[in-house]
């Protein structure tokens, strides 16, 4: 599975990590709804660390991403605004 970290690059991540990432994704969303800044940054950091364990996609390879993660510097406020601007 290819995962992009915004403003950073793509990683080739073991498909077996999908369920772990999905669980983190849920925690992340809950943290955004609660407005819990600490939890938000902790879960985002966990997800990014997991993805970064994968191999970085080399510069000469052109592939699509299956999942896109915000960069480490995305604030809770930005994340909330994003969700409001693009309702499901």
């Amino acid at each position: 599975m290819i995962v992009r970290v915004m403003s950073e690059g793509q990683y080739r991540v073991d498909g077996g990590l999908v369920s772990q990432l999905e669980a983190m994704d849920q925690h992340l969303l809950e943290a955004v709804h609660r407005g819990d800044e600490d939890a938000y940054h902790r879960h985002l950091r966990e997800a990014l660390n997991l993805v970064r364990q994968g191999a970085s996609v080399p510069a000469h390879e052109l592939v699509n991403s299956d999942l896109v993660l915000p960069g480490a510097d995305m604030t809770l406020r930005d994340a909330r605004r994003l969700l409001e601007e693009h309702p499901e």
Partner: protein
Amino acid sequence: MGLMSRMSTIFKAKVSKSLDSMEDPRETLDYSYQRQLEQLQQVRRGVADVVTSKKRIELQAAKLDEQIHQWEDDAKAAVAQNRDDLAREALSRKQAANDQLEGLHTQLADLEKEEAKLVDLEHKLSAKVDAFRTQKEVIKAKYSAAEATVHIGEAASGLSEEMADIGLAMQRAQDKTESMQARAQAIDELVNSGALNDPTVSSGDALRDELNKMKTGKTVDDELARLKAESGQTAS
């Protein structure tokens, strides 16, 4: 849907689908490559613009710093002439501008990081465009139209993703430089007109503004006492 999955959907919507309608992609490969080179040029200009804006803001900050020192000198002169009222005014302008300038320096440090990221992304994009050039030659030489569609589709949208990513990063850096320019401008007005309640530098919270004003007042008293002590006068 979680945050990342939503993010993925939003991001992918920004990725161009321009190659979908192509009948024989082999014919348009060179054109696509030309477009990519143009976009890469635009990205390079964009990065250069961010660098220029940052330098301009740095110069403005340095100039403001000088003006703030000037207020300090003015306050000293006022104290020497026993004009506490003037000294107080000079010191409060100095203090208010100083607080704002500190904020600007923090933002500048932040922009510095953003700039480094943009330069890195630009290098990556450049390598990807080059990879596309190689792939297009292989595809033109080896594949039929139908096969080429499959092979080029992923390469083109992979590159398009890269463009979308750098485009968003660029937008963010530009928004930041704009807000910093506005801030530098507001400080400039603050220093020159003494409009301490300038709404453009308000925190947006009346209580916070009031507390800041109180703190500034206290600092002004302390600073005045310091200047008086330095000039051998006793604080009143």
